[in-house]
């Protein structure tokens, strides 16, 4: 097991699924218990990674290599860096939660349901661990099938439509992605005379910019559908809304991350010329910004609670892609952190919607109001989640979104400005949702008898709430884990050492001891745009204090100032 840790984590859910298939389908308790045991065991096993992961090592860790299809140069090649570490931990945690949250809601055909979740877990883990493009593609597409069944069988009224839409969108995207991979594969063979899908070997490729652009767009179609980026997002609201709670949680928290992960792992490092091409960057950022604003505006118009949460993903994932295409250390780091945060908070949001749906069998926002009076615990958790999602300081969303915005600001003031508008809109629709559902008089008769969260449900949300606070208060481990991988990506993007260093150094977490003038100045610069529309005076103050070298006070000031700005929003 020492050397096969990744394989063990990867195949544990699959092995659990095979055992599950052999169980008698009438014995629901056994099936349910077993699925929970397997998913929790996988999570615990993945915790070993934290202990053994070496933050200071630059390359991939826990590498495993085996020949698979030598004639086409495909290998079984696993490995992990800081980005995949976070994604794997998120996957195992969310999967365990998704399994547990179906404890009571899934009664019919539970065997198929749990086996699909476990298969999905293996698929997603495989995506995050593969260092061979072919293997990656395999896992990528395998994920489609369990998700298709989860939506199509256990979903809401329009489940069939949603499932097929999801499947076709993703399949079409992934076919183009495969074309892109094959193009790289043939280019490598043309340059080196060897056929291989190994990522690290393909990284040595040097392609003409034109070729890179074509390949970039082939990969883009695959990744952008999954994220989803603006014009390709139309499958998402249907799929998320129709999926059962566990399905929505898995879809939002994990599957969307596969797309952004793809950009970070493949598009950027493999195609540095295309990824830094001005018009491509501008296009990507434009799409991200449109997603942020458009997603938020659509959220404001939603009457369906779950659909609102679904559209909020479009907006939040827009931040992730914005961070990626800021193409600097802060943007990239912030993007990964935001992905983790989105996994946590959107997972929570979907769980909470699921809880209320199980009780009331409706998701119409207008059916609710004043629920906080009968479900105080629920309302508290919901409030925390809403604040976390809206980017309130001391909670996780703040860290990611503001790091991204600071990264974006380094490149272009207006990107950050639009991002901040999106953030304000985000706070608006979330707080409005909270107000409409939780606050006010308890009008509906049915709502008066709603029961607060059961212990099992509390058990589900508490770890996520804890993480939301933990990341919000002490994000430093995340920054530390991401430092090396982000540097590696930046090195690929800018082989020119000058720009590389200037870009990579500000990846420091708030409060970290740094000495160069450059890094001192940049955090202050990065916060400014975020506050500019609301509290310019405060920001300048923060900036001047920072440049005096007392960096450890910066976060506190920033928290306070943003908090003020948020309150202003709320007051509107």
């Amino acid at each position, binding site marked *: 097991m020492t050397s096969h840790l990744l394989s063990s984590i990867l195949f544990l859910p699959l092995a659990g699924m095979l055992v599950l298939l052999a169980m008698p*389908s009438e014995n629901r308790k056994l099936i349910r218990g077993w699925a929970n045991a397997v998913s929790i065991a996988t999570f615990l096993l993945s915790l070993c990674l934290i202990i053994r992961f070496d933050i200071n090592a630059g390359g991939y860790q826990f590498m495993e290599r085996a020949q*698979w*299809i*030598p*004639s*086409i140069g495909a290998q079984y090649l696993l490995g992990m860096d800081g980005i995949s570490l976070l994604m794997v931990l998120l996957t195992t945690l969310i999967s365990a939660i998704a399994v547990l949250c179906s404890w009571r809601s899934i009664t019919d*055909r539970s065997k*198929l349901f749990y086996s699909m979740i476990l298969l999905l877990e293996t698929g997603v883990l495989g995506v995050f661990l593969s260092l061979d493009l072919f293997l990656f*593609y*395999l*896992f990528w*597409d*395998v994920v*489609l*099938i369990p998700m*298709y*069944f989860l939506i*199509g*069988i256990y979903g809401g009224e329009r*489940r*069939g439509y949603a*499932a*097929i839409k999801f*499947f*076709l969108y993703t*399949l*079409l995207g992934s*076919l*183009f992605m*495969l*074309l892109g991979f*094959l*193009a790289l594969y*043939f280019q490598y063979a043309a340059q080196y005379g060897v056929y291989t899908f190994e990522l690290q070997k393909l990284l040595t490729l040097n392609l003409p910019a034109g070729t890179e652009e074509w390949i970039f767009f082939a990969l883009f179609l695959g990744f952008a559908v999954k994220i989803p980026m603006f014009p390709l997002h139309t499958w998402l609201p249907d799929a998320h809304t129709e999926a059962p709670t566990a399905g929505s949680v898995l879809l939002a928290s994990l599957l969307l991350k596969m797309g952004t992960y793809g950009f970070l792992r493949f598009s950027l490092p493999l195609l540095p010329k295309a990824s830094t091409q001005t018009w491509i960057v501008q296009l990507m950022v434009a799409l991200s910004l449109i997603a942020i604003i458009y997603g938020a505006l659509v959220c404001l118009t939603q009457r369906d609670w779950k659909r609102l949460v679904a559209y909020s993903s479009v907006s939040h994932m827009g931040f992730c892609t914005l961070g990626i295409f800021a193409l600097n250390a802060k943007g990239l780091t912030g993007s990964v952190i935001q992905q983790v945060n989105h996994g946590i908070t959107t997972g929570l949001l979907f769980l909470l919607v699921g809880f209320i749906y199980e009780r009331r069998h409706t998701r119409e926002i207008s059916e609710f109001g004043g629920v906080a009076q009968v479900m105080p615990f629920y309302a508290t958790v919901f409030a925390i989640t809403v604040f976390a999602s809206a980017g309130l300081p001391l909670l996780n969303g703040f860290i990611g979104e503001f790091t991204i915005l600071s990264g974006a600001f380094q490149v272009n003031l207006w990107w950050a400005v639009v991002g901040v508008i999106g953030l304000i809109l985000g706070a608006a629709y979330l707080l409005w949702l909270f107000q409409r559902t939780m606050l006010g008089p308890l009008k509906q008769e049915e709502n008066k008898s709603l029961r607060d969260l059961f212990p099992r449900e509390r058990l589900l949300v508490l770890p996520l709430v804890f993480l939301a606070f933990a990341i919000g208060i002490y994000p430093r481990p995340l920054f530390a884990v991401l430092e090396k991988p982000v540097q590696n990506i930046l090195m690929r993007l800018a082989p020119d050492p000058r720009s590389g260093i200037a870009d990579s150094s500000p990846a420091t977490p708030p409060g970290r001891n740094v000495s160069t003038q450059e890094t001192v100045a940049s955090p202050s610069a990065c916060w400014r745009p975020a506050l500019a529309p609301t509290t310019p005076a405060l920001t300048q103050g923060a900036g001047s204090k920072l440049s005096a070298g007392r960096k450890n006070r910066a976060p506190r000031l920033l928290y306070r100032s943003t908090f003020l700005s948020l309150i202003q929003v709320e007051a509107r």
Partner: protein
Amino acid sequence: MIGNYVPHGVEYIRILPEILLCIFGILIMVLEAVTAEGQKRMLGVLALVGIVVAFAANLYAYTVPGQAFQNVITIDAFATFFRGLVLVVGLLCVFASLGYLRRQHAESGEYYSLILFSLIGQCILSTANELIMVFIGLEISSIATYVLAGYFRDDRRNNEAALKYFLLGSFATAFLLYGIAWCYGLTGSTNLNEIHRVISDPGLRPPVVLTGIAAALILIGLLFKVSAAPFQIWAPDVYQGAASPVTAFLSAGPKAAAFAVLLRIFMTGFGSFSFRWAPLLWSIALLTMIIGNFAALTQSNVKRLMAYSSIAHAGYILVAITADSQLGIAAVMFYLAAYALMNIGAFVVIGHVAAKNERYVRIEDLAGLAKRQPATAALFALFVFSLIGVPLTGGFFAKFYVFRAALEAHLVWLTVLGLATSAVAAFYYLKIVVAMYMKEPGESMADLAPLSSGTRVAVWAAALGTLILGIFPSVLLPFLSYSASMLGRQ
């Protein structure tokens, strides 16, 4: 002098599979007369034994590769592969037929011996190195399958299928034969190596236009057999009308053999002519993929849907042939193996659900299968996902190899368009999954019998094969590339 014309003993070993199939086929016909009505099943078992023995003989024949009977037959890796493939197809179909025929109360020896005879024809096609042999093999295979298609004499649709298959098939054979005649007239030979020699020799080369006509006539005949556009019209009617195990057989065996011949004739015989036929195949491949996939979109009868899907799959295989390379040949072989397994599996399940006299063949009739028989539904879903080309199934690797070969040959647009049509295909295939998993059981499920043992073997074997090809394609690949190198132009 006369001694040259007496075959060696080893030459008989090379056609041992055909000889054995012949013996078993005749034996079954003879035994039919003396077998009691209830014992007819044993004849099916005898057919199984015959096919297994022939398969072993095929492997044995491979230990002594070479030509036989004045170079009319070649036993090489390529021939061995295709002979093995059609025998596996036959084996699976006989297994599936055991239960099917019992349900119809129509067990007879004639059915099984027809399958064996058809297999003989396909084995000859796989090994032929001579156009006359191609014609003979094609006729043996076709005539047996014409009869099989109309096996249920009282069934109207069976009759329609047989008649259409026969008329259009004969028409196609006539084209082929005419092409062979042209070929003989131009090159003075019907031997493929000889044709190749004459065509590539600048001194002997006949006029290009005439060679083109000869090749085109042969191509038309073979495209009919593989149901490629624009010669695909017969396929939906025949596939729909014939009994499901027969359809499974028709869609896999004769198709594989016809592709084997197509490859051998065009890679060996007209190899040096490829720059002329490649653009033609390019458009035919694209047209076939488009017609097959788009026509399938509107089908409500699941057998008809599968018929159009198999037309589309012929299109994918043609893409690999268009690539005109050793990779392409290997891709064709892999594709046919994967296609045979998944398609037979699918048709066997369809036949199972259809119940007596094939009453339930609409897509809605599959509704609720997952609830009634989860294992059957899961296996059908596996075949469907394989047909779509989802990873970890044979269908995925098959498509992957095909398009990889196409890209290698710089057929970028054909690849892109082909991939696009295969995404379209996902839509109609998913209808089957939707019906099985997401609809409530209807009338058809009330009549659903448990899987008979023969059907069970066929379905599980096909599923296992599909998975093995999908997860460990390396079991087959080295042999395939070796076979392809045998066939590659000299």
